[in-house]
C-alpha cells in the first residue's frame, strides 16, 4: 500500500513543502479569479459602451440640425463611393463608355482618363445612390469598387442656406453653423436645434425675393426676431443658394448680409438717437429744434429729404425723419453719453453669434463730435442688420437688451437694462406714429389689426472708391408688432432698388416705398404662425392709448430751443 507514511521527511521540509503548495494554489487561484472577473466585467466596461454606441451610429456620426419645431435642416444619409483599380479594368475605353451611360454627369474624357490611369486607385464618384451601384454591378465593367460612406444633405435646399453653411467631403464644417458647431455635431448624438422656424424663414425669403424682382434690386437681408427672448426666428440674405450645391455658389451668393454685411443704416438709427435723448433726460419730447434750414458742421452739410416749414419737436423730428433735427438732438446728447448707450446696445462690438460670418462694426473709435452727429441719423457707423435688430428690439422690449440667439437651449436669458420702461413706452408710441401719422414715412407697413410700429430708413450707399454711389439706396424698415406689447420684430433691408415709374407712377425707392410694404406682408403671413391674433374689436381703444398728443396738438408744446 502506498501511503504518506512510506516517505520519511524531516518535519522542517514538510513545513516548507506545505507552504510552497499553499502559495502555489493561492497564485493559481488568483490568476483564475482575475480572469474570471475580467471576463464577467468585460461587457460592463465604459469603453465598451462607447464602442457599442459607435457601432450604432457607424456611418451616420454627424448629428442633425433641426429647426425650432424639429424639422430637419441638415442630415447625413448613407451613400456609396465608386472607385476603380485601373490595372483590373479590361478594355478601359469601352468600360468608360458604359460608365458614361450610367453616370452622364461624368464626362467620357474624365472616365477614360481615370480608367486608363497608371495609378493603383482612382476615384470615380464620391457620392452615389444604391440604384446606380446596382446598375454598375450589372453592367459587367471590371475593376470597379464600392465603399459605403455618408453624405450631408440639406432637405430644405435654399432655406436658411447662409446660416447652415456646409461641410467638406471629409465631413468637416466649412461655414455657418456647420463650422461653428463642428465639434458638437461630430461628437454629440443629439441634434443641434436652431431657433429658426422654417415656415417663417420661407415667408421672409419669399417676400423679400418678390420685392427684389419688382424693384430690380441688387441684394437684401431680412430678420424676424422674438424681442422677448432674443430668439432669431428667421434670418435671410439675398442672393441665396442651394446648400446642397455649396461649391457651385458664387462668393456674392455665399455672402451673409444679415450678419456679415456692414451698412450705414440711415434713418432707422433715429429710433436709437431719440431713445437716448429721452432716456438720458438731455432732451424733452416736446422741445423744438430748428429744422427749417440745412446744418453745417465744418465741411459737412446736413440736409433733409424735405424741409419742415417750422421748428419741430422731438416727436415730429422722428416721424418726419429729419436728419437736421436728429443732428441737433445728438449735439445736445453729447458724444460721451451717445457712445455709452451705443456700447450698452452692443453696437460697437462684434455680435456673439455661433457663426463664422459675423462682422465687427466699423466706426471711428475716438468717437469725435462729427461721428456723434452723423451716427444720429445712421451714418459714420456701419453695423450689421442683426446688430440693428437687437438694438431696436431693446428699445421696444421695455428697454431690456437681450443678445440674439440662434441655438435653442435652456440657458437663462440674460437681460440687461439699457432704457427705462417709460422711455420704451414713449418710443413705442413714436414708432406707431411713424406708421399711422399722416406725415409718417412708414404708412405702408401698417398691417391692419397687428399694430405695427417702426421706422423707415433710406441710406445712401458708399462706393468702393469712396463717396456715395449715385442713385443707389439702402431702403429699410424695422418694425415690431403688436407695438402696445411687442413680441416680434421684423427687419427688411433692400440694397439698390431701381425706380419703377412704369409700375408705380413715381420714382421713389425709399424705405417707406420699398421695404415697408414687404414688412407688412411678412407680418400678415407670419402672425397666424406665431399665434398673434389681429386686434379688430378693441383697435380704436388701443390706438387711442398709443396716440401721442404732442404730434396732433401743437398747443401742448412748451419749450422751444435752437
Amino acid at each position, binding site marked *: 500500500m502506498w501511503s504518506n507514511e512510506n516517505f520519511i521527511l524531516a518535519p522542517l521540509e514538510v513545513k516548507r513543502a506545505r507552504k510552497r503548495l499553499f502559495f502555489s494554489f493561492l497564485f493559481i*487561484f488568483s490568476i*483564475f479569479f482575475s480572469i*474570471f472577473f475580467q471576463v464577467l466585467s468585460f461587457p460592463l466596461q465604459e469603453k465598451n459602451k462607447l464602442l457599442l454606441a459607435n457601432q450604432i451610429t457607424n456611418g*451616420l456620426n454627424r448629428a442633425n440640425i433641426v429647426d425650432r419645431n424639429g424639422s430637419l435642416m441638415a*442630415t447625413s444619409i448613407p451613400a456609396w463611393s465608386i472607385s476603380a483599380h485601373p490595372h483590373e479594368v479590361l478594355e478601359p475605353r469601352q468600360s468608360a463608355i458604359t460608365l458614361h451611360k450610367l453616370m452622364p454627369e461624368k464626362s467620357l474624357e474624365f472616365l477614360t482618363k481615370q480608367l486608363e490611369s497608371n495609378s493603383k486607385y482612382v476615384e470615380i464618384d464620391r457620392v452615389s445612390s444604391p440604384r446606380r451601384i446596382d446598375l454598375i454591378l450589372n453592367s459587367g465593367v471590371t475593376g470597379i469598387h464600392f465603399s459605403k460612406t455618408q453624405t450631408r444633405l440639406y*432637405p430644405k435646399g435654399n432655406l436658411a442656406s447662409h446660416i447652415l453653411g456646409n461641410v467638406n467631403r471629409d465631413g468637416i464644417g466649412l461655414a455657418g453653423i456647420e463650422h461653428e458647431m463642428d465639434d458638437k455635431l461630430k461628437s454629440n448624438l443629439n441634434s443641434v436645434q436652431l431657433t429658426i422656424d422654417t415656415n417663417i424663414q420661407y415667408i421672409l425669403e419669399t417676400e423679400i425675393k418678390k420685392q427684389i424682382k419688382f424693384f430690380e434690386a441688387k441684394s437684401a437681408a431680412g430678420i424676424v426676431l422674438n424681442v422677448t427672448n432674443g430668439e432669431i426666428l428667421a434670418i435671410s440674405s439675398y442672393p441665396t443658394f442651394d446648400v446642397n450645391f455649396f461649391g457651385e455658389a458664387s462668393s456674392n451668393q455665399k455672402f451673409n448680409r444679415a450678419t456679415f454685411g456692414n451698412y450705414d443704416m440711415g434713418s432707422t438709427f433715429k429710433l436709437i438717437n431719440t431713445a437716448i435723448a429721452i432716456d438720458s433726460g438731455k432732451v424733452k419730447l416736446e422741445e423744438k429744434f430748428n429744422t427749417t434750414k440745412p446744418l453745417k458742421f465744418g465741411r459737412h452739410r446736413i440736409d433733409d429729404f424735405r424741409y419742415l416749414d417750422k421748428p419741430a419737436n422731438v416727436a415730429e423730428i422722428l416721424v418726419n425723419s429729419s436728419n437736421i433735427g436728429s443732428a441737433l438732438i445728438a449735439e445736445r446728447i453729447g458724444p460721451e453719453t451717445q457712445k455709452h448707450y451705443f456700447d450698452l446696445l452692443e453696437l460697437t462690438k462684434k455680435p456673439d453669434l455661433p457663426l463664422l460670418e459675423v462682422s465687427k462694426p466699423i466706426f471711428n473709435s475716438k468717437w469725435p463730435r462729427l461721428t456723434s452727429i452723423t451716427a444720429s441719423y445712421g451714418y459714420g457707423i456701419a453695423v450689421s442688420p442683426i446688430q440693428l435688430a437687437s438694438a431696436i428690439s431693446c428699445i421696444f422690449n421695455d428697454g431690456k437688451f437681450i443678445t440674439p440667439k440662434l441655438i435653442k437651449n435652456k440657458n437663462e436669458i440674460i437681460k440687461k437694462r439699457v432704457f427705462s420702461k417709460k422711455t420704451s413706452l414713449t418710443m413705442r408710441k413714436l414708432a406707431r406714429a411713424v406708421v399711422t401719422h399722416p406725415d409718417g414715412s412708414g404708412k405702408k407697413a401698417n398691417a391692419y389689426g397687428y399694430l405695427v410700429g417702426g421706422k423707415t430708413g433710406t441710406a445712401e450707399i458708399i462706393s468702393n472708391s469712396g463717396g456715395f454711389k449715385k442713385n443707389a439706396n439702402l431702403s429699410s424698415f424695422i418694425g415690431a408688432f403688436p407695438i402696445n406689447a411687442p413680441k416680434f420684430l421684423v427687419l427688411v433691408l433692400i440694397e439698390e432698388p431701381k425706380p419703377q415709374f412704369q409700375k408705380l407712377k413715381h420714382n421713389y425707392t425709399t424705405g417707406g416705398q420699398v421695404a415697408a410694404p414687404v414688412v407688412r406682408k411678412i407680418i400678415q*403671413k407670419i402672425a397666424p404662425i406665431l399665434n398673434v391674433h389681429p386686434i*379688430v374689436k378693441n383697435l380704436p381703444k388701443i390706438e387711442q392709448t398709443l396716440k401721442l398728443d404732442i404730434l396732433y396738438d401743437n398747443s401742448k408744446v412748451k419749450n422751444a430751443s435752437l
Partner: protein
Amino acid sequence: MWKLSILCSFIAIITGIILNVISNSIQNKQAHLVKLEKQINEKKEKLRILETEWEYHTHPKKLMEIAENELGMSSREVDQIGQIKMFKIRGSAWTMGGLSTESLLKTHFEKSNGKMN
C-alpha cells in the same frame, strides 16, 4: 494535504468550466448584440432617408403650392375678416317661418349666454 489538493483541483476545474460556459455565453450574446446593432443601424439609416424624403416633401414651398392648387387655399388679408354686423341681412329675403336671420342669431346668442351664465 492531498485532500486539500484534490479539493482545490476540483474547485479549479469547476471554476474553469463555469468560466468557459460564461465566456461562451458572453461571446454568443455579444455576437447577437452586434447583429442587433447592425439591424438597428440599418433601420436607422432607412429611417433617416425616410425622414429626409419627408422633409423634402413638406418643404413650405411645396405645401403652399399644394394648398393653392389642390385645395384652393391662399393667404388671407386681415381686412378680409369682418364682423357679422358688417353684413346687411335682408330680413324679407332670409326669413324662416316668420323669423329673420338677424332675430334668429340674436336668440341664439342670448341662449348661448344664458347657458354660459
